[in-house]
């Protein structure tokens, strides 16, 4: 396969369009044409793959709405750590940020079928907050009082105040403020749109197909793997601990 300089230029133009979340093929003829060619032209596909590989990116979906890229790790396009999600986050705030995003996705796509459905989902900040609180409460009740003293995620979540008293805009230290902050970041990344009305006290966001794709194609498997690894490590540690503990009273 002979790749020409034109192919390289076109491939990089397409990657450029894909990275610009404000551009849509339906509103840009060049993007639409390159996307059409990408679907049928093996040379362009290979060139795009090569361009992406060089940038530590890869193609996760080819949709009518555009080419969807995801960063490999490490990549200059990768957030790398949640610390980069927002500067100055404490470890606990990082966890809360991740939990909020997990909850947003859970509220938007509660069943596997929802992740397959081509529809824009609307979420409100209060709706996510309610789900966070209620689930944390249920999990806390399930754990009961016979658990160890180790700090758990649900307890950390429970200790976050809901809102800033007497203020119209809740600070990021509150759960409502944090949820709004996370959703606003999704807007910046082209994964959501803020559709809050001018007189609306409860911010509302539309979660775009882009976000659904990232959750379905990347986050689901990666998180499941991390969760399984954590559970496996815990079980192994407990088993080793039990095995190391002498049976019966040494006295």
């Amino acid at each position, binding site marked *: 396969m002979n790749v020409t300089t034109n192919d390289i230029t076109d491939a990089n133009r397409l990657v450029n369009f894909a990275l610009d979340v404000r551009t849509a093929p339906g509103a840009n003829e060049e993007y639409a044409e390159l996307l059409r060619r990408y679907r049928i032209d093996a040379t362009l596909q290979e060139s795009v793959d090569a361009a992406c590989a060089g940038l530590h*990116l890869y193609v996760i979906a080819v949709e009518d*709405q555009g080419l969807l890229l995801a960063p490999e790790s490490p990549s200059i396009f990768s957030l*790398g750590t949640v610390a980069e*999600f927002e500067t100055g986050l404490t470890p606990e705030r990082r966890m809360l940020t991740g939990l909020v995003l*997990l909850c947003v*996705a859970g509220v938007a796509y509660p069943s596997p079928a929802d992740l397959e459905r081509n529809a824009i989902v609307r979420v409100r900040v209060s709706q996510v907050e309610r789900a966070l609180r209620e689930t944390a409460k249920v999990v806390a009740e399930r754990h009961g009082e016979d658990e160890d003293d180790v*700090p758990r995620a649900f307890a950390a979540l429970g200790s976050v105040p809901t809102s800033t008293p007497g203020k119209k805009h809740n600070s990021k230290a509150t759960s409502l403020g944090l949820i709004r902050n996370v959703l606003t970041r999704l807007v910046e990344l082209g994964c959501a749109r803020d559709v809050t009305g001018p007189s609306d006290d409860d911010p509302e966001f539309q979660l775009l*197909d882009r976000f659904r794709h990232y959750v379905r194609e990347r986050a689901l498997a990666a*998180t499941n793997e*991390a969760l399984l690894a954590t559970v496996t490590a815990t079980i192994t540690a407990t088993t080793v601990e039990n095995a190391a503990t002498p049976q019966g009273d040494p006295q």
Partner: protein
Amino acid sequence: MSQACDTIRTVSDPLLDDPPESGTDDAPITGLNAWRLQALLPALYQDGFYRRLKLLRRTSPLHRLSETSSRQSWDASRSYDPMLLCVCAIDLVMERDGLADAYDFESLIEAIALVAEIAEPEAPGSELRDVAEWVVRGLLGSDGRADFTADYGDYRGGDYHRGIYNWHLLKELQRTDGRIVLEASVDAINALRSGLDLDVEDAQLAHETVMQAQLERGDLDGAERSADEASRLSVALAVKTRDLMETIRFNMDIVDWRAEFQSKAADALTHVLKRITAEQSLSEYLMDGADLQDSKLRLRSIAILEKVDRCLTRHRELQSLLQDAPKVFLEEQLRQVMPGRTRSRLRLSVFDDLFVPTLSLRVEDATRVATTFALAAMGPDIPRVLDFSELVNRLLRPPRCEPNVVVLGNPFDDIVDQLSDEVDPVLLAAAAGLFAGCYTAPQLLSELLAGAPGPEVAEVLRLVTLLLFDPDDLAAEEGLDMGAISDVLGLVAISSGQTFAAAGYQGDDLLVGPIALLDVPRPDFSDAESHQAQEAKTRRAPT
């Protein structure tokens, strides 16, 4: 009996109708009572019975809205009819489905508010909007979930069992131009078609034949009704075809290309091509009617012609979609065999299988799991590196000075005189009238274009908006010696970050508003008569 069921299912299974439900296998009917019941009411064991039940359930959200209307924020004595408003909403969405000016959430609310206003002319605008928003949200589903769920009893298969039925009436979809528009589901269309339990294809054929006959005998009322129905059916077919393409993209594993998909797509394409031919012939017939001397007859013919033309446009789009179907299938196949890029085959619930277990973890473990999710779910982040060339251009741009108030005859004249000597003053006045609203509240270019009475005014609007967006560069390109046009009008256009495609235009949807948006004091027309306000604008001296 089971053979009869199968026969019914095969005959009534249209191109893309609901898949057969679970529990409809050939299981024998067991028990004496079951045999008695089958003899007493055989329909209870047949699919047609459950299709009727589904149809009834599809309208349940509309009934729920009616029941809860008295508990809303507006006065309970108001005479709004939620059911009527719901059907209007679905009808409006279907009317423009697939077209450039398809309704989105906001525009549908505006349209429904207009319908509500006729019922309650005295009601304040905010209340009308609330009513309309409540209706649209009610049709979208609770919490924006875009679907409704109902459980149902089922006697098919011999044993009584219960199942769950999901459906939606309206949903929001992102178009290729980035705009999010509303789409009515086949369920909604069927519900609106009074339970017509026919293939979309058969119904279309029947309506075309009927319409042709109605036109030939001069029954324009009947022909218009048929054209409306044909339009709804074309939307139903469009939705079904899009669903088919979606199935390929998301559930390729369940699509049997050779045995099922290929023949369905080919049948659909044949059907669409036949519709195009029939509609072209109808369109030509109606064109003759458009030349009639009788103005009433002529107007009716034109109205029907517009409806037929809409069907034609949709069917042409479907033709292109269906012709691309094999390519989409192959492309999906290719995409899914790409090494390391296969989609996750996991069928997990984000909420139950990931979020809830993570909450139980120790903080350090939960941090690891939750951040893994966050990083994977957010996609690429574009590094915020400064674009130096753009930065330099911005720094070198002359600053906007304080306004120097000068009364002009008409600033639009000033601009257009320099653009062209041949612009019709009527067009100019119409464009100026539309821009006048931007002084009180910024408006999107798409909104301005939507309000344009004709393409010529739209072109003036577009041109002036572009000049307002980048006056210096564009004026220079045009060789115009007019300084900053923003300063002449006291208006400026900025990027809204959205794109649009409507009224024959597409591109960035610019926001036009007063210069105050850029922290420059806006001209004050508050005391001026609206006409005078158009005539006497303030201007700033060109820099």
